């Protein structure tokens, strides 16, 4: 299980290949990529800045990976989350889960993203033609997380 929080962009192909080739018992590789949209709440987005809590982010993301590994039969997982200033079409986050079969890998990948959205300490600030504004948390994200609470 790996977590990386970084300003630099990432190469999806390289990251997937690395995880896929690491273990010959892998039969399924599921990934999610989040990218910066050009419109939010009706306004064109110029830039998106990701702030985080450096001391806590790594620990919070590792805790999510550990929880996923306990709940599903998966082999490995990777979370790469970028911080700093980004623009529309830039990649923000990558989650990859490997497993013997697709079912658990799909579910674990969705679980990791739903928990990341609601419990990892990142905050988005966007600039539009009206100036800067902090992005509001979405109730739909809490609902997505609630689906997994046992």
């Amino acid at each position, binding site marked *: 299980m790996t977590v990386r929080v970084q300003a630099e962009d990432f190469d999806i192909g390289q990251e997937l290949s690395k995880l896929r080739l690491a273990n010959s018992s892998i039969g399924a590789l599921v990934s999610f990529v*989040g990218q910066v949209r050009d419109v939010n709440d009706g306004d064109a987005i110029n830039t998106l800045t*990701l*702030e*985080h*809590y450096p*001391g*806590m982010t790594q*620990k*919070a993301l590792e805790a999510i990976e550990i929880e996923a590994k306990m709940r599903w039969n998966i082999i490995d997982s990777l979370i790469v*989350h970028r911080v700093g200033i980004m623009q529309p079409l830039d990649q*923000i*986050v990558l989650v990859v889960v490997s497993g013997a079969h697709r079912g658990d890998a799909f579910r674990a990948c969705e679980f990791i*993203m739903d928990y*990341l*959205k*609601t*419990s*990892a*300490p*990142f*905050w*988005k*600030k966007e600039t539009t033609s009206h100036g800067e504004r*902090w*992005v*509001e*948390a*979405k109730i739909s994200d809490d609902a997505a997380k609630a689906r997994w609470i046992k």
Partner: protein
Amino acid sequence: MKIKVLYFSRIKEAVNYSTEDIDLPAGISTVTALKNYLALRGDIWTNLFNGKQVVRAAINHTLVDDLSTINAGDEVAFFPPVTGG
């Protein structure tokens, strides 16, 4: 009891700094009590910590609820609901 307090995102911008050391009076030992104590500073502090805004807390890098206990030497962080991903 001495603790370290960190602020993030819009809360950091509102108070205009990111970290401070606080020597808490006796009896303030939960997140709720600390929020109420900060709200007594007035102005923006009252607006932030009087309970009308959702302010999440972490103690020593773990998300906690408002009933959680604060101990000497803890790092307590306050921030709005997260919006990563």
